[in-house]
Each structure stands twice: as structure tokens, then as C-alpha cells.
């Protein structure tokens, strides 16, 4: 077994297997993104009593492909007031930080000499938080470098929102970490053999989902891109595939939040049936939560800005802290 380069892990694959796995994860998730995109538009249509896209291909299934073709063929435009290099780096940074988090989502245990995950790092959840905090710079730089007040205000809102909700999100996962006794996502799934953590940690699960909506700038927390007030927030000045990158990253982040939530609370890859079904169970749970994201988008109106802040700091944060305290006492007592 080769020694890992950057820290200890419980299971290490050969280098070529790692490369194959990276490509596999990439292909699966990147194929899922257009599917989710289409599913969202179809579902939103159904929720609003209309058809949704149904012209391109059978049942509109080629719509995402057509969209990408359109975005790619657009002119790479940069506004006059934009800061040259930062304006180009910002969307790439967002995509980078979204994609890199895919590595820690576990799709199964070690099977036949293959760990069915990218890497199993002992810092697990912290890895997710580290890169979601890098993602923030993608949004903020994009808004700042566009040289437009709408973009700037959108970026500032997203900054304030991210800071406010990241704390609640971290605290909501702490209960699970305490019960599992490990930060590693693989260990956390294994600790759910008897009971999924959604049952004892229902409060943590709800807080995590709410904070997850806020982190991905989704309705009802989509104030950074509130189109009635800010045109399109931080992505106002972006067009073509640079806008496409932001859009793309948002959907990967939704998948990641769903993946982390499935892993931490819904038993990850666990499910009835033979062990080769494990990755499918994991994907099914992820897609179910992604459906939930769409459902909420079709159901709830947008918050007002002060309501968003008050909700984050005065309700979610104390609730998450209380959850951590109660869990800590229970873990020690039992």
C-alpha cells in the first residue's frame, strides 16, 4: 500500500485507481447536472400548472444541451468597468470549489479492493466547509470585479448571508459528528447501521437543510440574485459560458448539499439489497433531496433581507447551539 502524500487515510487506492475513480465521479455527477436542470424546469412547470420545456427532443430532454450550445456560442463579453483578470477567474473559482468537494462524498464502503469514494479524509466534514468558504470568494470577486452596483450589492448580500448561515450549518452537523465520534464521512455512514441520524438529530437535519438553501442561494434565500431588486445579483454582468459556470456550480452545490445531508443524516449508501446497490441508494437519496430543493423553490416566496438575517442569527443559531448542547449531554450520559 503506497503511503498517502498529504496526511493519513484509513484506505488508499493505487494511483491509477484514483485517476479512474476521479473520472468516474466526474462523469456521473456532471451527467447528473443537466438531468437535474431539466427535472427542475419540468417539475416547476408541473407545480405551476404548465408544461415546462417540451420542444427540444422527446419530452424536452435535449433542452439542457441546447442551452449549453447557446451559452457556448455567445460572445465572451466583458463590461468596460470590470476588473480584467478577476472577472475571468471568479466563475472558475466557483466551479473549482464546487467540483473539488465531490471527492469526499462516499458512494459505498470498500468493495472488492475499491473504496467507492474519492478520498476518505479524517477531516471529512471540515474539507467540505473549507471549500465552501473558498466558493464564497468566487461569488464576491465576481460581483466586485464586474464594476456594477447591482453585482456589487448582490455579492455583498451573498457575503453577509454566507457568514450568517455557515455557523448554523457547522453547528447543525456537530451533533452528528459527536454521535458518530468521527469527522470522516465513511465512518459517519458506518455509525448509522442501527438507526439513521435523522431520527435522533432531526433538529440538526432541519437546520442543515435550511442553511443549505441559504448557502446555495436558493429560494427562499436567493437574495443575492433577487431579480426584482438586483437584476441578477453577482451574475448580472456575466454572459455566455461564464454565466453558465455560475449556473453550473450552483447545481453542483445543490447536489453536494444533498449528498452531505444524505451521508450525515439519511444513512448514506445504506439500504436494502445486495451491496452493489449501495451507490444507487446514495444517488437516489441525493436526488430525492434535490427534488426537495425544487419543491421548496416552487412553494415559498422570498424572504425580506432583515427577516433573513434575523432568522439566521436569532433563531437558527441558538437552536443549533441548543441541539449541540443537548446532544453532548446525551452522548456523555448514555
Amino acid at each position, binding site marked *: 500500500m503506497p503511503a498517502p502524500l*498529504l496526511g493519513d487515510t484509513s484506505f488508499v487506492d493505487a494511483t491509477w485507481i484514483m485517476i479512474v475513480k476521479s473520472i468516474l465521479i466526474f462523469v456521473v455527477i456532471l451527467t447528473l447536472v443537466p438531468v437535474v436542470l431539466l427535472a427542475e424546469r419540468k417539475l416547476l412547470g408541473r407545480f405551476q400548472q404548465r408544461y415546462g420545456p417540451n420542444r427540444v427532443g422527446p419530452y424536452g430532454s435535449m433542452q439542457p444541451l441546447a442551452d449549453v450550445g447557446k451559452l457556448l456560442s455567445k460572445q465572451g463579453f466583458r463590461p468596460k468597468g470590470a476588473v480584467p483578470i478577476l472577472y475571468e477567474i471568479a466563475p472558475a473559482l466557483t466551479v473549482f470549489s464546487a467540483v473539488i468537494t465531490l471527492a469526499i462524498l462516499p458512494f459505498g464502503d470498500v468493495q472488492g479492493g475499491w473504496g467507492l469514494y474519492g478520498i476518505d479524509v479524517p*477531516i471529512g466534514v*471540515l474539507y467540505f466547509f473549507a471549500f465552501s468558504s473558498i466558493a464564497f470568494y468566487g461569488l464576491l470577486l465576481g460581483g466586485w470585479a464586474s464594476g456594477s452596483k447591482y453585482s456589487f450589492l448582490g455579492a455583498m448580500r451573498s457575503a453577509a448571508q454566507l457568514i450568517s448561515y455557515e455557523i448554523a450549518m457547522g453547528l447543525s452537523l456537530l451533533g452528528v459528528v459527536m454521535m458518530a465520534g468521527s469527522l470522516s464521512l465513511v465512518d459517519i455512514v458506518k455509525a448509522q447501521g442501527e438507526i439513521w441520524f435523522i431520527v435522533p438529530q432531526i433538529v440538526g437535519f432541519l437546520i442543515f437543510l435550511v442553511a443549505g438553501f441559504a448557502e446555495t442561494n436558493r429560494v427562499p434565500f436567493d437574495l443575492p440574485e433577487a431579480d426584482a431588486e438586483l437584476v441578477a445579483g453577482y451574475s448580472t454582468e456575466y454572459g455566455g459560458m461564464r454565466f453558465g459556470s455560475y449556473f453550473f456550480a450552483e447545481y453542483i452545490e445543490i447536489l453536494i448539499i444533498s449528498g452531505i445531508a444524505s451521508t450525515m443524516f439519511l444513512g448514506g449508501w445504506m439500504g436494502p439489497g445486495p451491496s452493489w446497490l449501495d451507490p444507487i441508494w446514495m444517488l437516489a437519496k441525493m436526488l430525492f433531496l434535490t427534488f426537495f430543493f425544487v419543491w421548496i423553490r416552487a412553494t415559498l416566496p422570498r424572504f425580506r433581507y432583515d427577516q433573513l438575517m434575523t432568522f439566521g442569527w436569532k433563531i437558527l443559531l441558538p437552536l443549533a447551539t441548543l441541539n449541540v448542547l443537548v446532544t453532548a449531554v446525551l452522548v456523555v450520559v448514555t
Partner: protein
Amino acid sequence: MVELAFFVGAFGAVGGAVAVVALRNPFYSVLALVVHLVFLAGIFLLLRAQFLAAAQIVVYAGAVMVIYVFVAAYVGGIEEPMFDSSPQLRIIGPILAVALFIEISIAVLGSSLTALGTEGTDKIGAGFGTPEAVGKLMLEDFLIAFEAASILLLVAAVAAIILAGRKRPEKKVT
């Protein structure tokens, strides 16, 4: 591979640090500091301090620097320096910097370098730098120091709230 990772991390960290003081625009300075912190986290990873690396990014790049970027972006765009540096400062500043550099060099050459082994990171034992190991150190071996630091932070936070808090308008007595 390790050497390559080290030099990427080292050049990134030093380059970021130099850029912080060299750039005129405060917003770019803050961004350079973020770059520096991220590359420093990479160096921590090379030293097998995974928890430290993650904490570095989450706490510094993800929380502290976010506030800095926030402020610099709001105030930002000031190209001219905030105040005219007096001629005395222009002389004293570099002298102090050189003195500090010499002092650190003496300290490093005198003590720290001798503590370095040539065995590499394989010898430090499994589990070094994992959250478990760091947690044991903080909450069992150095509990008092850890708690003292946390109380200090709490006091500082309360003080910041009191200092920054708006004074409430006094109620009129009728």
C-alpha cells in the same frame, strides 16, 4: 512529488505575503493575504497537520478574511495611501524590519533547525495531526491553556460588542 508540492506551497505563500505589503490597493492586499493563507494550508498538509490545514482555511480564509474583504470592498478603491508617511517612519520602518528578520534568523538557526530530523514525516507516527490527535491534546493535555484562550476570546468578543454598540437613546422622562 513532495518536493514539488513544497515549492508550490512555499512560493505561493511567500509570493502572497510579499504581495500583501507591495500592492497599493487595499482590496488586492486582502486578496493576496487570502492566497497566502491558502498556500500556507497546503504547507500544513505537507506536514501532515490535516486538522490545522482545514481549520486554517475555515477560520482564516473562510471567516476572518471574509470580513476583511467585506470591509475593503465597501471602503475600497482607494488608490492613494491612507496617510502621508513621515520621513522618520520611512527610515525607522525598514530598520525595524531588518532587525526583526535578524532576530528570527538567529532564533531559527540557533534552536529550531537542530530539532529538525532528516527522517521525514513517516516517523511521526500514524494519526498525527488528525482531529482525534489534536482534540486529545487540546482537551486532555492542555485543557487549562485551551480554556484560558477561549475565555480570552469571549472577553474580547463582548468588549467588541460593547465598544461598537450604538448608544441607546435615553428615554424621555415625562
